[in-house]
Each structure stands twice: as C-alpha cells, then as structure tokens.
C-alpha cells in the first residue's frame, strides 16, 4: 500500500461509506474470529446461567400488586 493517498480524506464520513471503510480495516481470519466468539459466548453463558436474584422477582410481583390496587 502506498501512502501517497489518504491524507486528504474527507473529514465527515457519510454513513453509507462506513461499510466500504470496513474493507480497509484489519480483519481477523475466520479461525481467530471463531475462537474469540467461542470464548465470549462461553463467558456469557456462565453469566446467563446464574440464578436470577430474588430482588427482580420481588420487584415485578410488588408492582403487580401495587398496580392492581390503584384505581384507574
């Protein structure tokens, strides 16, 4: 890649050109991408499997009751 071009890029990048801009960004090979993705999902799954704290159940139950008492 030569460095002659590129110094006078428009300062405002129109939205639609961002997709093209992606092509200029370094991109991971699919193997690395998969590894990152697998690790991310594994970490996330662990969080998802945590039991829901009671406070959220209580919160929704309480609001249920409160709303029912309100005359509307």
């Amino acid at each position, binding site marked *: 890649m030569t460095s002659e071009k590129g110094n006078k890029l428009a300062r405002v990048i129109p939205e639609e050109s961002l997709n093209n801009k992606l092509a200029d*960004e370094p991109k991971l090979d699919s193997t690395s991408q998969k590894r990152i993705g697998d690790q991310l999902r594994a970490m996330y799954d662990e*969080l998802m*499997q945590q039991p*829901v704290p009671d406070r959220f159940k209580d919160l929704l139950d309480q609001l249920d009751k409160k709303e029912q008492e309100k005359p509307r």
Partner: protein
Amino acid sequence: MTPEPDLRDALLAAVPSLRAFAISLSGQVDRADDLVQDTLLRALSNLHRFERGTNLNAWLFTILRNLFHSEYRKRRREVEDPDGSYAGRLKVQPEQGSRLDFEDFRSALAKLPPDQREALLLVGASGFSYEEAAHICGCAVGTIKSRVNRARFRLASLLNVDDVDDLGPDSMTRAALQNSI
C-alpha cells in the same frame, strides 16, 4: 396499567440476558443489578411506549444501554479503567469447579473502549443482528460492524490469539496447571 401476567413473565425471562449484558458492560455485579432494576422500573412505567409485537428484549436492552451511558457520562472518571481494575472487580465465578478460566478474557474485554465492548456483546453474545444492535445503540449498521470488527481484532491481539502456541487444549491445560499450583 397492570402488567399482564405474560408480560411480567416475559420481563422476568429477560432478566438473565439483561444481567449478563450489564455485568459484561459495567464490570460490576452490584452496579449491573442496579442497572437491571432501573431498566425494569423504567420499562414498566413506559409500557405504553412499547409496541406490541416488536422485540421486547431489544427494547429492554435499549433502555439498559441508555441508562448505562447516561450514568457512565456522569461517572466517567470513576469508570475509566487504565489499570484494569474493571477486571479485578469482576469476580463472577458462580460455579466452583468450572474448568474454564475466563479471567484473561474478561480483562481483555475490559480494555476495549465501551462502544466496541457494547457492540461486540450485543452481536457476538446477546444474539442480536447488526441491524438490531444498530437500533439499540442508535447508530448506523456500518458503525456497529466496524466496532465489532475492531473489538474482535483488539481482543485477538490482547489475547495473542494469532499465536498458535497459545491456543487450544494445551493453553487450557497450562492455565489449569498454573492455577492449581
């Protein structure tokens, strides 16, 4: 407006994914739970704004994400994490005996700029499409794609994913051995 039972169940069903997102985004379980609580409260008081038939999860994620950012702007100095203390605070090891060690991954995730972290979490973990993620973040699809791409690239270099020696069962075993010493 009384939340219908099925809506209440739907909100409750959304909590695990909201929590996972909030914890990964903020790096603090307590703060994440506060964020989820505020999200539920705000959702309940704005139920009339929710369009039935559209994606409830996406709507909730939008609320949570906006709450996080308005709080983030307020507490920017506190939240910036040059020394990786985000990762230090993030101690979520619910299941003892889990053989997977996510510490490296978490600390790498913490080093990403928030907008990249958020985009990666939405697309790579929460299961949203690029279009949905763009809607949630209020930006263009191309912006999300670019952020996700940068996030992956940055993570790969932080985790040395390109280095084949560091990968696979060997590194897992090594990590396990190191931990057991």
